[in-house]
């Protein structure tokens, strides 16, 4: 087994463990490369099926292609897809692009808040109707207690401290200093009632591993990651007002791999195009303590 085989087996094991242990399980799907690899791994784990719903939080500031790609794949792969959003904030134009909030505040509202209330089922959600071929309002949004998330340890400092199974209390807070042990293949899978659990099957993957795996498995990836001829591409996908494309002429997956292996991006952080990380010296960490993924 080479290191991609090992990473795959490790993640599949974790996904199966999560599926075995949690009754109300959901996987977050940001449409980006990491969570799409995660989705692919779920199909590996469950032999072509994805036996739990996927949730996408729509900030309405996503590049439109992301939404098209999302719906296409959901239909093609028979995914049970749920979409949540912070509609009151969007209706009242309480956002950063509208000039009402700082970037970090906007993330908190359109992502963290929307996610929290979509997960606990207290806000209205939409769900893909496979007979109609589009999203419809969900009749009775259920609450999820297990959430599978595609964060990687190499993304930034606080993510490098994550456990595979990580408890968040009812306030969605994270106690970084006091985390359960994980050893051999045994993870913390017992939780007091009411605890929310995040499952992180991709912690050990690097950005390069992700691209090598996409290449090996021919996973369909959204074209925003590739240069369309203007010498620019996205390295990390977020909302368009806060994510700048990088200068790059990588037109396909092998080009990106070459770029990461020895080219211009070897030493530049992946999230360097994400502006919210730069606010207050530790923007992402502050966000994550408050429930951001």
């Amino acid at each position, binding site marked *: *087994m*080479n*290191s*991609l*085989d*090992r990473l*795959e*087996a*490790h993640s*599949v*094991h974790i996904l*199966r*463990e999560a*599926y*075995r242990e949690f009754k109300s399980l959901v996987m977050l799907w940001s449409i980006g490369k990491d969570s799409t690899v995660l989705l692919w791994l779920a*199909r*590996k*784990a*469950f*032999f*072509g*099926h994805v*036996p739990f719903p996927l949730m996408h939080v729509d900030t309405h500031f996503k590049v439109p292609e992301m939404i098209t790609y999302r719906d296409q794949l959901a239909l093609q792969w*028979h995914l049970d897809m749920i979409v949540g959003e912070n509609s009151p904030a969007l209706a009242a134009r309480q956002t950063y692009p509208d000039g009402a909030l700082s970037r970090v505040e906007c993330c908190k509202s359109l992502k963290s808040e929307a996610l929290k209330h979509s997960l606990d089922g207290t806000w209205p959600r939409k769900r893909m109707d496979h007979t109609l071929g589009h999203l419809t309002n969900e009749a009775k949004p259920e609450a999820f207690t297990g959430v599978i998330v595609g964060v990687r*340890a*190499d993304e*930034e*400092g*606080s993510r*490098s*401290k994550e*456990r595979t199974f990580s408890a968040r209390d009812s306030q969605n807070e994270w106690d*970084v*200093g006091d*985390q*359960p*042990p*994980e*050893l*051999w*293949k*045994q*993870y*913390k899978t*017992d*939780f*007091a009632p009411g605890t929310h659990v995040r499952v992180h099957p991709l*912690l*050990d993957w*690097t950005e390069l591993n992700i691209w*090598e795996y996409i290449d090996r498995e021919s996973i369909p990836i959204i074209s925003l990651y590739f240069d369309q001829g203007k010498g620019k591409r996205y390295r990390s996908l977020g909302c368009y007002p806060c994510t700048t494309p990088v200068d790059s002429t990588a037109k396909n997956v092998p080009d990106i791999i070459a770029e990461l*292996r020895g080219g211009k991006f*070897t*030493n*530049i*952080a992946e999230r*360097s195009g994400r502006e919210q990380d730069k606010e207050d*010296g*530790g923007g992402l*960490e502050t966000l994550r303590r408050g429930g951001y993924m």
Partner: protein
Amino acid sequence: MSKSHQHEQISIVMAGHVDHGKSTVIGRLLAETGALPQGKLEQVRAQCRRNAKPFEYAFLLDALKDEQAQGITIDVARCFFKTAQRRYILIDAPGHIEFLKNMITGASRAEAALLVIDAKEGIRENTKRHGYMMSMLGLRQLTVLVNKMDLVNYDEAVFERIRKDYTEFLARLQIHPVSFIPVSGMQGDNIAAGTGAMPWYKGPTVLEQIDRFQTSRFPDTLPFRLPVQDIYKFTEQDDDRRIVAGTIETGSIAVGDAVVFQPSGKSSRIRSVEYFKGPAKIRASAGEASGFTLDTQLYIKPGEWMVRADEPALQVGTRLRVNLFWMNRAPMICGKTYKLKLGALRSTVKLVEILAVLDAAEIGVDSAKQQVDRHDVAEVILETPKPVAFDLIGDIEQTGRLVIVDNFEIAGAGIILAKAETVATTSETPLLDPAGAHGNTSKFAVSIIALSGVDNPDSPALKRLISQNAIVTMKTMGEGGGEPASLETVFKLLKQQGFILDYQI
């Protein structure tokens, strides 16, 4: 560089007493292998200037705000770098005793360890404790870095004394370190490059040493062991496969192989190896997160083991002698019920006896203790309500391990030393007619023994059966996938049919 090398990756944990310089050494390694994100070093230097603190390489790792405030590594941080040889994951484990469970988390997924000792302070409590933990976790590839050599004038005598003392200590734990390297994380001596400061040292630098570490091989030549994680039947899109899924711990298996499930004793044959996307497979081996369909429809539950009928089976019993390390604040108490996780099995378990409590730092023995306290290592007897299947650590390391859950937390980790004497519930005299004319005799006998949990390993009858590769098979007992018949029904039936001479329950 060959393609396989490009993909090779190894994880290394840093261990050692608090403040002996683990984070500093890692920070150095990252900086000198060019692994830091552009601007990171400058950013941390600038932050230090703003806060009027001297710059520390350790700050690079201690990325979280809490840590910089307290100056200690709270949790396991992973960092990535590469050499011309391969890629590395370095796990920075905290040295503070409060965070031992974090150190264990880090060490349990590593293939090698670098243990740091402060040349000036010498061997301390956690230097020893971490050595002990590594031996328990099965981490045998260890290099010791004698750090802060700059503080002892790069004196060879200081280095040699530490090397001698710690080598002796580790020898008692059956650990034989690969090497000792005198370094200064702060000055960069012997980290990525050699140094003029210690001409007496002729060995490798840290970077050269880790390039020589060996990646762990998957143990595919040991007997096959699959902890059954789940059984899937996804009916969507007319899928009618019933798939036994799990990650193979050891050994290998192929389509057509006869298999046995333990402890239930049911048996079948591998019909197919299931895999989503990719070429069809007829074989699967250690390390793979696999899936199988069987020739027959069996009622088996997650938590059982699937083994090969032509290979040695696991032990089955209710009493396990275990070497256990306890991590929870609340002590482990005799008579209290806990949850056991062993492979894919979950069971309740009781601590029934404490044989000895070892102090991990001193490796002294305290046999008078009545409970296992936090950070103690104890030899204990655990008892499960029903027979469970397991290997002994001396036979198969990967499947001779367990964890204990208390109050929702993994509170204890243990290695199984032996099967403890069972209180016999049935006769220990051979149950079968040794000269039985029925070809199936041996198979039934083993299944009963396994089911009743009294398989005395010294029973000559059992030994003979095992040497004949007897198979546990309960198929004829509970046809159609129903629950296995009660022990008494089984015995009665077998006696009626003349398979066994007599039985007692």
